[in-house]
């Protein structure tokens, strides 16, 4: 293509402009470019800039900084514990609600608190704990996490369990399975997509959550999300960017494994 043809092409484009379906996606694509892709590129570039020149020094700094690695370890442990508690508490709730005709109304009651900003709820929780003279620490942090994220476990589970055709349960009973065996051999495996959705939607937000742990532990427990926040507040953009990349990698890896287990069915049953 010759350079002098370009203006002509552009004019043609404008002249032949037609409102096709594709046009409606342009505003969102622009938004994505500005506020998702650009920041990611900035983070990526920042991670490799140290003292104004290109280097891997940020990675080395992080790898040799024991406290940062400890924060990462603690975050993952808190994430796993929160997810397990949410699953153990949420599954029975979702299961019982799916048996009730008015179950979906009650699920809304579980979701209702989510319409209040999580910071406000966490401040409230902090005040309640202080008034009850509960020592703030790991226990209260995990309580706060479970309290904040359990709706994300119940909702996908409730949707999946209530959509399981009741003929599967009958088929299991018909083939000789007792009520307990029916649950473990048919209902539980059939609700796997919901479990996977629930785990993904609790684990990842938990490890990246910030403020909750600080507020509910009097700043004694710092999680990965808080740590990134602190790094940026202290203008340590290089190390902060590296940590953000690690976070991103964690999200992608866990998503990949979840999809692997579930053969990609979780996404379909997310809500």
């Amino acid at each position, binding site marked *: 293509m010759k350079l002098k043809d370009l203006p002509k092409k552009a004019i043609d484009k404008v002249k032949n402009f037609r409102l096709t379906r594709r046009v409606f996606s342009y505003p969102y694509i622009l938004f994505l470019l500005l506020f998702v892709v650009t920041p990611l590129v900035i983070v990526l570039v920042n991670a490799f800039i140290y003292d104004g020149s290109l280097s891997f020094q940020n990675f080395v700094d992080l790898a040799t900084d024991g406290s940062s690695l400890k924060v990462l370890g603690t975050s993952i442990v808190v994430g796993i514990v929160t997810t397990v508690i949410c699953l153990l508490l949420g599954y029975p709730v979702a299961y019982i609600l799916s048996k009730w005709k008015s179950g979906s109304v009650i699920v809304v009651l579980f979701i209702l608190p989510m319409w209040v900003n999580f910071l406000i709820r966490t401040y409230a929780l902090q005040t309640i704990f202080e008034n009850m003279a509960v020592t703030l620490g790991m226990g209260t942090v995990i309580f706060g996490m479970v309290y904040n994220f359990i709706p994300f476990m119940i909702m996908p589970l409730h949707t999946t369990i209530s959509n399981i055709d009741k003929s599967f349960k*009958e088929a*299991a009973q*018909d*083939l000789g*399975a007792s*009520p307990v065996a029916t649950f473990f051999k048919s209902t539980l495996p059939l609700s*796997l997509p919901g479990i996977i959705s629930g785990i993904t939607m609790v684990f990842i937000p938990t490890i990246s959550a910030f403020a909750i742990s600080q507020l509910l532990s009097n700043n004694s427990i710092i999680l990965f999300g808080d740590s990134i926040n602190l790094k940026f507040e202290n203008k340590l953009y290089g190390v902060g960017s590296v940590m953000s990349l690690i976070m991103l990698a964690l999200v992608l890896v866990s998503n990949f494994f979840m999809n692997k287990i579930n053969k990609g069915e979780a996404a379909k049953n997310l809500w």
Partner: protein
Amino acid sequence: MTNQTKDVIIELKNVHKDYDGKPAVKNVSFSVKRGEFVTFLGPSGCGKSTTLRMIAGFEKPTSGAVYFNGKNITEIPPHLRPVNTVFQKYALFPHLNVFNNIAFGLKIKKVPTGETFKDRKGNLYEKLRKLTKQEIKDKVNNALKLVDLEDYGHRNVNSLSGGQQQRVAIARALVNEPEVLLLDEPLGALDLKMRKDMQIELMNMHKKIGITFVYVTHDQEEALTMSDTIVVMRDGVIQQIANPQKIYDEPAHAFVADFIGESNIFSGIMRKDCVVEFFDREFECVDKGFKKNEPIDVIIRPEDIFVMPADNQAAMMTGKVDSCVFKGDHYQIVALIEGKEEVNELLIHDNTEVKVGDEIGIFIKPFDLHIMHKARIINEIETEMWDEGVVEICGGKFPCNSNLPSGTPVKVSIDFDDVIVHDDEEDGIIGGEVVSSIYKGSYYQCIIRADNYYNFFVDTDDDWLKGDRVGLSVAPDKIIIEQLERKDEE
């Protein structure tokens, strides 16, 4: 307990099932013999599936009892019943492959080891063990062979065609060696050709294994092809239990005849033994024992009617051809037969083509005229007067020509012709649901169920859609009121 316990494997006694107060199965009693192929046949919502589900144990009867080998199993949960079910939508577990779907029941099953042990109270128990991996493998492979899917064990169930899934469902049920196999419209989701093939396969399987099959379908042809015994149901009530030949040739009444195959159903009068009158003509028939001049239904199968030239000596009557359509292996002819007052339509299946508008002669053999008692000849309701000149019928206030005081117990009679059906429920005095509609040559006989479950028989010129809500009213002078003796309960 029954006296023929040896032969009978399943018995239902006065089984009744209500859903939210609405009866789905009403007082059903019947028994299934060992090794029999029994089919429940009826339109949707007739209670056939509910009956099957009560045998399987998924539904508990509201009253009545289910017996298995003479033992009352009404309270036994489904997983302890020696029956297996093939579900309408197959219900194959999507998280298991074909092999594991079939092995599902075997992995749970426990078999006696032959040894026994005593508990502390001295009760003797048989020791049970689970099946070994090898035993399960052998059984599953045999089952796969039975349904012609030997190489499909490792396949994902969702990758199979409808027919193949169906076979896996059958194999999954049969591998447990149940004494009775329950099949709930198993071929409903298959296309016509596949359905025909599976019918043959199921029949062969039944012969080969020799266990009892209880089959549910709304497809009358399927029922006639496969069954040893057919149970025709409607509105939760058994209409007739007989073998396919008998159901077809001697339907118990107009509903069964209408549901099983095509048929002509006409209202007639039994003049005396072996003489029936319909179309304002008298015909010779072979039925006896009816009352003199009793109103009856005459049923004639379209293929039992012979068509001949109008001037043929043997012709019993003549008719004008209204339409003639080729149907692949026969011509479907509609002939109009003139009576004194009305013109009747007669449906004929014949091998020769006739011209529309031509006069044809018609002959029917006497024993092909099936005479049936009418279910009812007039609508009769026992009720009370609401007020002078107003009678209460099924919760509605009907104006009438009677001056009996309020509260008088009365018997109300209304002729089939005199019930007026309104398209809009609001236009009638009471509302009701159309339960059935049978064409009787020149009019439709509908059954309309009022909200208190009283069935009105109505003769109308229009074909009302089953399941529709309609309004009912009656002209005041058509309501015949008879005073009843007041029952003194004191």
